[in-house]
């Protein structure tokens, strides 16, 4: 009985912290002639985010991620559709929305010449918090985000990772339960990115926050998110868990590199017996010949393949089995690779 009750509360409507219906934004641009041209940045999206979720908004640059985020955070008025954020309407109750959410923009939040501690205190005070409270909240956040000792530091003298963590601290100073992060790790080195991922995951585990983030990095969406919304050309083309999305792709990628190019065709023929998609033969730059295809349940099939290759006396330079990545998902959904834009 109690299990049923729990599952009901988890899926009940009351726990939705973001609900958007047909949210759209068109900009007026000018075409090559003088005539006005309507540019659809976001062409009517539906978004549902439940309390406690980490949802990733994935898409290439210019897909409409930031525009959607700016509409949800009251920075931009939708031209059509509606959205409720933290229980308030973004169009008519923007003040209440602003009070309830934290927003970490990709362009930063502090002046390079200011001092970090003063910036976070002023920011907190703009939310109506007293100076004392803003200071104690700020210092607490500095500690949580590994910024101890940087209270007096100017943002221009901080590393990229420190500045991003300062931006996150700024966005959390009023203790919001819903946090929007726009491209949180863009421009950071791999170590700083991994470090920031831990902090973002902590927002939920330690503060119980709901997180909505945009990214054009697949590994980021994969590592952080419970659910991913894939956006392309202003429309959401998929919405699911990273694993479910990856399962949509037809199987794992199996790539062989054949030592003797003359035998590539035979290898391709053997690989073709277990393949779910067309077998591709490609000359690699170092003179070897690669043979690849997608195979469902490759882990199970590959052993037989290797025995077959061995029996035929075809020597391999290497064999690789790769699980589908979100890049494959994106390619599958849109016909384009995300990496071209990344």
């Amino acid at each position, binding site marked *: 009985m109690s299990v049923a009750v729990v599952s009901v509360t988890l899926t009940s409507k009351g726990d939705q912290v973001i609900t958007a219906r047909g949210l759209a934004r068109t900009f007026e641009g000018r075409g090559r002639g003088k005539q006005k041209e309507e540019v659809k940045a976001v062409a009517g999206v539906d978004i549902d985010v439940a309390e406690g979720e980490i949802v990733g908004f994935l898409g290439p640059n210019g897909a409409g991620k930031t525009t959607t985020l700016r509409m949800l955070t*009251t920075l931009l008025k939708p031209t059509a559709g509606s959205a409720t954020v933290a229980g308030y309407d973004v169009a008519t109750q923007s003040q209440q929305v*602003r009070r309830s959410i934290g*927003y970490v923009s990709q362009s930063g*939040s502090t002046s390079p010449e200011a001092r970090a501690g*003063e910036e976070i205190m002023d920011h907190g005070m*703009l939310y109506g918090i007293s100076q004392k409270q803003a200071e104690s909240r700020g210092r607490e956040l500095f500690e949580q985000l590994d910024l101890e000792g940087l209270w007096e530091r100017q943002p221009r003298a901080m590393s990229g990772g420190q500045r991003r963590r300062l931006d996150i601290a700024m966005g959390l100073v009023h203790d919001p339960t819903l946090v929007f992060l726009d491209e949180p790790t863009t421009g950071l080195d791999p170590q700083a990115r991994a470090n920031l991922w831990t902090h973002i995951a902590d927002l939920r585990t330690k503060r119980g926050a709901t997180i909505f983030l945009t990214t054009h990095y697949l590994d980021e969406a994969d590592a952080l998110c419970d659910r991913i919304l894939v956006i392309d050309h202003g429309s959401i083309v998929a919405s699911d868990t990273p694993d479910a999305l990856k399962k949509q792709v037809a199987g794992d990628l199996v790539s062989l590199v054949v030592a003797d190019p003359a035998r590539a065709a035979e290898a391709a023929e053997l690989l073709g017996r277990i393949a779910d998609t067309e077998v591709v033969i490609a000359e690699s730059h170092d003179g070897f010949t690669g043979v690849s295809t997608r195979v469902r349940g490759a882990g199970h099939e590959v052993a037989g393949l290797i025995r077959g290759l061995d029996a035929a006396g075809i020597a391999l330079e290497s064999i690789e089995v790769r699980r589908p990545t979100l890049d494959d998902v994106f390619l599958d959904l849109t016909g384009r690779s995300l990496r071209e834009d990344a």
Partner: protein
Amino acid sequence: MFWRETYIVFRRQLRMALRNPAWVIIGLVQPILYLCLFGPLLEPLASTLGAENAYTLFVPGLLVQLGLFGALFAGFGLIAEWRAGVIEAERVTPASRTALLLGRILRDVLQLFVQGIVLIGLAFLFGLTGSILGMVFGLILTVLLGAACAAASNALALTTKSEDVMAPVINSIALPVLLLSGILLPMTIGPEWLQVVSDFMPTKYIVNAIRELFVGDFFTITTMWGVIWTIVLFAAGLYVGTRTFRKENA
């Protein structure tokens, strides 16, 4: 609430400005340079220009110039802030958009006020005499004009978001205003066509009014027009400024 937000923004702006000594020094040196290097040129011309004291002619012009130019360039700082994401971060708080603008204008106005006091105080050393009360009113007109210009400059900055667009716009406004307002020399010594053209320049009336105030003429038509134009420009500047700051996507 509104005033608290305005104060928070103002305090932040002032703190950052004061921390940059170059900014403070340049702001104070400018009026001193004008007094020292340009004042002596005007002194022998004063009687020709119909003034008993060269500095009642010269200081009001300098005041308006400070008000116009210092404030018109205020928007450049805003572009840098916008680029750093500060404006967007402030706009996502529940703070009033007008407070975000007003706090910034108050910093520019304070700077102008201090510069004006330094200018008038130094001018006394050079030989300025006149009505103290008139000088106070003159300074108030200057500050109101400066607030209008700072608001307009911030609005322009937030609209263009580019120094490269803003610099030519401001220069193309500032030069004719400087030349046609009689800031350095009164327009009355010019040919008639030039006087007619300058009649269309609101700031000319303000300069003239401040000159009258400096010699103690409070209730003249000239003073009245100057006060009216100052109020009109002040209201227009604040209107454009707040409108831009309230506009979404700005």
